């Protein structure tokens, strides 16, 4: 296979675009596309301050790299979750994130959950008896709350995450299987700012996970290859595999599933549930919006584990 731009041997083949590119032209192509998506979905402008949630994984480090190459003002936020499981997962992902920031001269904020709230994620999860053997439910609540809090406290306009198309398509698939209209209505490349929370954007939402891996490898980005030990056997991975089987037989099916969803949403397919989708209260403790009256789920959890 040959590069469409220069005819040299191709390094990447994207069947959904009928496009093969060599290393150099692929590394040029990714930021150009990202800039196009940022404009198309009105994610942010060059004058806005962007906080990138970085985990040490291929997607978030690549996102940071791309935004930096495009000249945006993008700082990083790393959340220390305290996940070890004998593998040193959090330590290693933090080391790789700090290394990347140092190599590129980028500003990185680090928040350690245990240092801030007294417990790491697995302990918080055990203490609150949520989510059976997997701390993912607690982890999700904490990550969302902390990202919102830091973006607000430090005055960032935008919070950017490294979700790729496979992430988005698998969440969409899950929400469609159970027809979660409120979730479907809120899923998209941009979640507008409201109630003092920064706008949330996903600039990589149209790149396949395979492309993001290729980008990280070809750019020589050192990312954490081993998964979070709690992700093994997760539904997300299962859905991604199912969608890849579909993609394998019908190139472009994954992308069409997501893009046609965005179009249908734009056309009002889920609009009737609009009213119930907006959080209507503010947490009296931290001020973040919540669906129900009283403290938000994060503050209730922290309260529960505080010694009386």
């Amino acid at each position, binding site marked *: 296979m040959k590069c469409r731009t220069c005819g040299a041997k191709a390094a990447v083949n994207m069947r959904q675009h009928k496009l093969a590119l060599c290393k150099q032209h692929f590394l040029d192509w990714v930021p150009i596309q990202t800039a196009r998506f940022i404009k198309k979905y009105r994610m942010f402008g060059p004058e806005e301050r962007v906080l990138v949630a970085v985990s040490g994984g291929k997607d978030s480090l690549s996102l940071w790299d791309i935004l930096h190459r495009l000249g945006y003002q993008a700082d990083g936020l790393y959340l220390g979750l305290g996940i070890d499981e004998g593998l040193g997962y959090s330590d290693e992902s933090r080391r790789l994130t700090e290394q990347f920031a140092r190599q590129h001269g980028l500003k990185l904020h680090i928040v350690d959950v245990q240092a801030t709230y007294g417990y790491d994620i697995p302990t918080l999860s055990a203490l609150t008896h949520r989510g059976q053997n997997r701390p993912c439910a607690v982890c999700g609540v904490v990550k969302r709350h902390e990202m919102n809090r830091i973006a607000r406290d430090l005055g960032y306009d935008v919070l950017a995450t490294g979700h790729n198309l496979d992430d988005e398509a698998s969440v969409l698939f899950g929400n469609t299987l159970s027809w979660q209209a409120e979730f479907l209505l809120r899923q998209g490349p941009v979640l507008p700012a409201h109630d003092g929370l920064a706008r949330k954007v996903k600039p990589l939402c149209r790149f396949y996970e395979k492309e993001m891996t290729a980008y990280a490898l070809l750019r020589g980005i050192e990312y954490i290859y081993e998964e979070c030990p709690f992700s093994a056997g*997760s539904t997300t991975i299962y859905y991604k*595999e199912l969608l890849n089987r579909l993609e394998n037989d019908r190139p472009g099916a994954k992308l069409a599933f997501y893009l046609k969803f965005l179009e249908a949403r734009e056309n009002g397919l889920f609009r009737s549930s609009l009213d119930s989708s907006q959080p209507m209260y503010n947490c009296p403790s931290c001020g973040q919006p919540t669906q129900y009256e009283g403290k938000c789920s994060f503050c209730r959890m922290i309260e529960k584990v505080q010694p009386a």
Partner: protein
Amino acid sequence: MTVKLVLRGKEYEVKPGMTLLDSLKKIDVLPESVIAVRDGEMILEDEILKDGDVVKLVAVISGGAQ
């Protein structure tokens, strides 16, 4: 006379002379879920694998609950 494919520490052997695509089919790995690297270079599905080739398969899927 073999080609070695390595995925997450596991080794698979296939016959030389096949394309990467056919080799992946043989070992039941979806091409969409891996990137193949030989001698530090990414190779595509139409690449013919030769005797003695060692191909590293980089898994691309990640993720727990969001």
